[in-house]
C-alpha cells in the first residue's frame, strides 16, 4: 500500500480544466462577433472591411496603454497615471521637436525613456514604501496633467516636423473604402508589434510568469524565491513605457498635442482589460483578451456612430447598457462553466 502511487483527480475533468481559463476570453470573442454580426444586420456599409481596420487605427494608442495596464493588473496592481502620462508624452514630443528643436528620433527616445523612468520610480515607491498602487499612480494622474498644462495650455501643432508624417502613412492600402477596400497606417503596425511582444513576454518568459505568480499571491511568490521587487517594479515600468509610446503614437496620429487629451483614458484602458477577461484582483487573464477588449470598446463606439441618432445622453446610456449586457453575459457564460461552491 505504501508503494502505491498517490493519485488525485482534479476537481474538474482534465479537458475542462484546460478550458475554464479560457471561458472569459471565449465569451468576449463570442460577444464581439455577435456585436459585429448585429452591426452588419442593422446598418448598411457596416460590412466594409474598414470597420474592422478602423478599430486598429483610432484605438492603437488605447490598445497600447491597455496592454501595459494588463501587465499591471495581472500583477495585482493598477495604474491610473497612463492617461496623463500619455498626454504629457505627446506634449513633450511637440515641445522637444517644435520649441526645443531636438531631432525627432532623439525626442521619441527621450520621451520613451522618461515614461519608463517614471514607471520605475512609481514602481519602486509602491514596492519599497508600500504605498497603495491606486494612490501612487493617482499622483501621476494629477502630476502629469499639471506638467502638461505647464508646458502649454493650448494645443500645439507639429506638422512642420517631417518625422511625424510617418505614422499615418498607409502601410496597407487595398482599394478605396467606397469599393470595399481598406487601409491601415504604420502606427497600427506599431501597436501590433507591441501586442506580439507583450504576448511573448507575458506568456513565454520568466518575467511574465512571475507577474502571474505575484498576482496570484505576492506573499507566496516571495516565499517561492521569485524576484518580486524586480517584477513588480518592472510592470510599472512597462506600463509607463507603454503610456509614453501611446503618447508618441498619438503624436503621429494627429501631429498635434493637446493638454486636455486623454482625460479618463485610464478608465477606458481598465474597462478594456477587464472586458477582455482579466481579473482586477490579478493573476488571471490574457494579452489577447485585452486585444479583444479594446476591439469591443471600439466596436461599441462604431455602433453608436452608425446608429447616429442618439442624443448625447442616450449615447452614454446605451453605452452603459451595452457594457452591462456584456458583463452580465460574460458572467453567465463564465458561471455556467465554473464549478460553483454556493
Amino acid at each position: 500500500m505504501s508503494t502505491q502511487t498517490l493519485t488525485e483527480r482534479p476537481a474538474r475533468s482534465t479537458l475542462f480544466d484546460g478550458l475554464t481559463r479560457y471561458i472569459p476570453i471565449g465569451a468576449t470573442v463570442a460577444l464581439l462577433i455577435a456585436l459585429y454580426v448585429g452591426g452588419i444586420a442593422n446598418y448598411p456599409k457596416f460590412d466594409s472591411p474598414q470597420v474592422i481596420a478602423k478599430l486598429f487605427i483610432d484605438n492603437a494608442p488605447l490598445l497600447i496603454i491597455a496592454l501595459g495596464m494588463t501587465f499591471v493588473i495581472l500583477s495585482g496592481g493598477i495604474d491610473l497615471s497612463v492617461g496623463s502620462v500619455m498626454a504629457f508624452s505627446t506634449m513633450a514630443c511637440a515641445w522637444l521637436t517644435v520649441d526645443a528643436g531636438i531631432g525627432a528620433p532623439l525626442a521619441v527616445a527621450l520621451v520613451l525613456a522618461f515614461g519608463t523612468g517614471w514607471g520605475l520610480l512609481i514602481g519602486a515607491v509602491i514596492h519599497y514604501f508600500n504605498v497603495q498602487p491606486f494612490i501612487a499612480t493617482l499622483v501621476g494622474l494629477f502630476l502629469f496633467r499639471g506638467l502638461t498644462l505647464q508646458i502649454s495650455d493650448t494645443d500645439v501643432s507639429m506638422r512642420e516636423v517631417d518625422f511625424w508624417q510617418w505614422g499615418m502613412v498607409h502601410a496597407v492600402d487595398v482599394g478605396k473604402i467606397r469599393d470595399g477596400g481598406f487601409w491601415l497606417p504604420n502606427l497600427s503596425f506599431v501597436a501590433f508589434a507591441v501586442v506580439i511582444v507583450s504576448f511573448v513576454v507575458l506568456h513565454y518568459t520568466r518575467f511574465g510568469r512571475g507577474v502571474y505568480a505575484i498576482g496570484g499571491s505576492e506573499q507566496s511568490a516571495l516565499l517561492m524565491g521569485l524576484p518580486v521587487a524586480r517584477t513588480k517594479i518592472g510592470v510599472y515600468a512597462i506600463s509607463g513605457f507603454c503610456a509614453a509610446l501611446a503618447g508618441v503614437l498619438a503624436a503621429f496620429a494627429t501631429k498635434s498635442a493637446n493638454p486636455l487629451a486623454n482625460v479618463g483614458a485610464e478608465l477606458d484602458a481598465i474597462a478594456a482589460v477587464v472586458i477582455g477577461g482579466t481579473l482586477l484582483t490579478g493573476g488571471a487573464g490574457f494579452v489577447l483578451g485585452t486585444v479583444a477588449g479594446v476591439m469591443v470598446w471600439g466596436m461599441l463606439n462604431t455602433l453608436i456612430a452608425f446608429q447616429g441618432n442618439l442624443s448625447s445622453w442616450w449615447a452614454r446610456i446605451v453605452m452603459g447598457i451595452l457594457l452591462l449586457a456584456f458583463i452580465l453575459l460574460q458572467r453567465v457564460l463564465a458561471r455556467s462553466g465554473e464549478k460553483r461552491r454556493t
Partner: protein
Amino acid sequence: MSDDPIVQMTGIRKDFTGVRALDGVDFTLRPGEIHAVMGENGAGKSTLIKVLTGVHTPDAGDILLDGKSVRFHSPGAAQAAGISTVYQEVNLTDNLSVAENLFAGREPRVGPFINFRAMRRKAKALLDDIGIDLNVAAPLSSYSIAMQQLVAIARAVDIEAKVLILDEPTSSLDRDEVAVLLGVMRRLAAKGTAMVFISHFLDQVYEICDRMTVLRNGTLVGEWPTAELPQNALIGHMLGREAATLEQIERTAAAHHVGDEEPLIEAVGLGRKGSIAPYDLSVRRGEVVGLAGLLGSGRTETVRLIAGADRADSGELRFEGAKTGGHNPRTAAARGIAYCPENRKTEGLVGDLTVAENMILAMQASRGWARSIPVARRDKLVAEFIEKLDIRPANPDMPVKNLSGGNQQKVLLARWMLIEPKLLILDEPTRGIDVGAKADIQKLVAELSADGMAVLFVSAELDEVTRLSDRIAVLRDRELIAVLESEADMTTERIVDTIVAGGHSSE
C-alpha cells in the same frame, strides 16, 4: 557526518510589535543531518526559519552559512545561496498550473523563452519520482491542500539545495504521503543534504530525526541527539511542565447512549454532483461521529453540506426531525450547527480583525448587526475563552493574523463554542497543533460531548478519530462507504481495511 556546521545561528533575537518572538536563540545544523525544531505553538519555530531565510530581518544575532557570515534580504537570496524551504503556510500560487508552481523562477528555457513542453515533462518526472500522479497542466487550485503541500515539497526537494527546511510539511498529509515524504528525506540525507524538520507529530520526529532543538516562548531550551531524549522528557522541555500532567484522553465510548435517542441531525441521500456522492449519516446528541478516509476522499465535502457551506443538490437534511429548507451557514448557525473549516486562513479567520472580534463574530452574526454585544459582556466572554483554551499571547486586541497557527485554531474554536451549538463540526481541528494543545482540544471534544453536544469530527489522524469517536464513517473516492459502529471495528486497522476493500468488508 562531518562536524563542521553548515548553518550556525547565534544569539538570534526578533521582536514584533508587542511580542518578542525569539530571544537569544542559537541553532546549529550539520551536513547530512535531519534536525527537528520542537516547541509549542507560538514557541518561535517558524520565526526562526524565517529569520534564517531572509523573510524577517533579525534584530540581533549572527548567521553563518558554511562558516561565512550572511544575511539574506529575501527568500530568493536564501534560495540562491542553497537554502530551500517549504514554509508552514502553503506557499504556492494557486492560479498557476502544478508544473508552473514546481518550476516558477527556474523554468526550462530555450533562449529567453520558456519551454512549456519540457517543463511539463520534467514536472511529471519529478512527481512520479516521489510517487504522486497529478495532471501537471491543471491549475493548482483544483487540488486539495494536501496535494498542494506535496507539490510544495516536491518543488523544494527539486531545487537540490544543501539545506532543506520543512516547516510542518506533514500537517495535512496522511500516513501514505508521510511515508513517501520520509523516504525522500532519507534519500536526501544519504546524499548529504542537511534538513530542518518541524512537526507536531512526535512519532514522525522520532522516526526520522537525528537531533532536536527545543524552543519555548522564544527562548532556547536546549539541543539533544534524538536518541538521548525520551518522549516525555521532550514534552516536558517543550511545555515547561512535567509530561505526566498531560492527561491522556480515554474515551469510554460505550458508556454513551448510542442508538436509544432520536438523531439530532440526519442526512438522507444528501449529495452534491461532482463533489460527494449521496450519503446517509446521522448524529445523535452527545455522540462523536468521526469521518475517516484518505486525502481527497470527500470528508470535507461531506461536512460542508451538513454545515450549509455548500448547497446540496440531492437528498435532504433533517434537523431535530424536521426537514431543513434553505440551509446555509447563517440558518445552520441559527439551528445550532457550528462549523470550523479546515482551512482556517482562507475560510475561518479574518486576519485583520482582533482576537476578540474574531471570537464574537458568529455570535454577533446570529444577533444581527443592530444588536451589538455590550462591551463588558464581550470582554468577559473573550477573557473567559482565552483562559479556557489557553490562547497565547492572551491579548484580545491583537490582530489574529499575528498569532501562531495553533492559537489561531483555538480562536476559531472559541468563536463557535460561544454560540453554544448543538452540533459542532470540526474539520481537522488539530492540524498543525502542538501536543499540549492537541490534548487540550481532544479533551474539550470529550467534555463537550459528555455535556450532550453532538460532534462531527474530521481528522487525518486515524488514532485520534478512533480514540474520540463513538461511530466512524469511512469515505473513499468521494463516497461514504461504511459506518463502523461496534467497538471491535473502531481500530485503525479496521478502517484501513475498509478503505482498501472499498466498503465491501463492512457487513
